[in-house]
């Protein structure tokens, strides 16, 4: 009997099957944009006696319903906000135990004593657009990051990193635990030099 070769399976429809799967995944795919500004909300509690804050340690930032930005009741362009905030935080006008030995500001007595004392208050109207609010938040974070970068590079210059890069390494799950502990202590030192004290008032109801 003649030797018959095994019948070949027709692979012509393979491409169709693969296309079907491909189209399914194409349709269900979303490229995720999961990053943003992290914030911590204050817990609801009755403040028995609010701490006394000196007026000069306080920077009121208001976004009104026309999406205008007011810092200390004067209109400020958004592009100038970062430098205004840095100037306020880095002023270091305090004397005695409030003195700030690393600040490089003007040491004006009418601006903040120490970055630890400085508080930024952000207030918005109910009619403010969310994207303007985010832009302002972004600039406030940028101001803090710039100062923290400066101090991190100054204190730990042999690491060749700035604050943001160090934080990124710290948050990377591939970093070893020893390295993380080391970074954590260094990051918290810098964070304590420039603690982010951002107070958000309840939005004004009247319009």
């Amino acid at each position, binding site marked *: 009997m003649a030797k018959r070769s095994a019948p070949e399976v027709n*692979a*012509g429809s*393979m*491409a169709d099957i*693969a*296309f079907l*799967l*491909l189209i399914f*995944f*194409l349709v*269900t*795919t*979303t*490229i*995720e*944009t*999961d*990053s*943003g*500004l*992290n*914030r*911590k*909300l*204050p*817990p*609801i509690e009755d403040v028995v006696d609010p701490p006394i804050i000196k007026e000069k340690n306080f920077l009121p930032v208001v*976004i009104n319903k026309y999406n205008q930005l007011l810092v200390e009741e004067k209109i400020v362009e*958004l*592009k100038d906000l970062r430098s205004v905030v840095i100037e306020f935080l880095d002023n270091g006008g305090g004397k005695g135990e409030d003195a700030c030995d690393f600040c490089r500001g003007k040491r004006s007595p009418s601006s903040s004593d120490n970055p630890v004392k400085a508080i930024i208050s952000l207030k*918005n*109207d*109910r*009619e*403010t*657009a*969310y*994207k*303007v*609010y*985010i*832009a302002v*938040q*972004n*600039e406030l*974070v*940028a101001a803090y*990051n710039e100062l923290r970068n400066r101090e991190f590079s100054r204190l730990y210059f042999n690491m060749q990193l700035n604050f943001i890069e160090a*934080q990124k390494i710290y*948050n990377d799950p591939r970093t070893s635990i020893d390295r993380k502990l080391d970074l954590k202590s260094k990051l918290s030192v810098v964070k304590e030099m420039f603690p982010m004290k951002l107070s958000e008032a*309840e*939005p004004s109801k009247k319009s």
Partner: protein
Amino acid sequence: MSKFKNKKGGDLPKISTASLPDIVFMLLFFFMVATVMRDSTLMIVNVLPAADQIQKLDKKDRVMYIYAGRPSSRYTDIYGTGARIQLNDKFATVEEVGAFVLAERAAKRQELQNVLTTSLKVDGQTKMGLVSDIKQELRKVQALKINYTTRLGDYTQNFN
């Protein structure tokens, strides 16, 4: 002679499609790896504002999402054009946010319940009033870690 028969003038030679499945499979695997399944259909316009001082969000199982924005065009004749909150697959009122957070929290594993982040995916055009209301609700249920989810970009993009 006929030994070297001239084949010219016949049909065009067929292009082999044998490698087509390989190519398609390659694409398929790429999309399979890159895919994140969309877990809720968006019923709102959701153009996130831009920011550049951003941090990556936590792992996916530690995050719950709250969407807000005006209803997308196919829903406007039912729901109007005012900004609304979307939780999972349906529109919700501000009062429902608290219950949603508690339900989401209860569904997570015990050790994750204290480290949950709430991601606010809010359309850039939304008024802050709605966002403040959501934040107030979150404070009531002690969901204090939030993330204003944005896309990467310069802040000046928010003004056009």
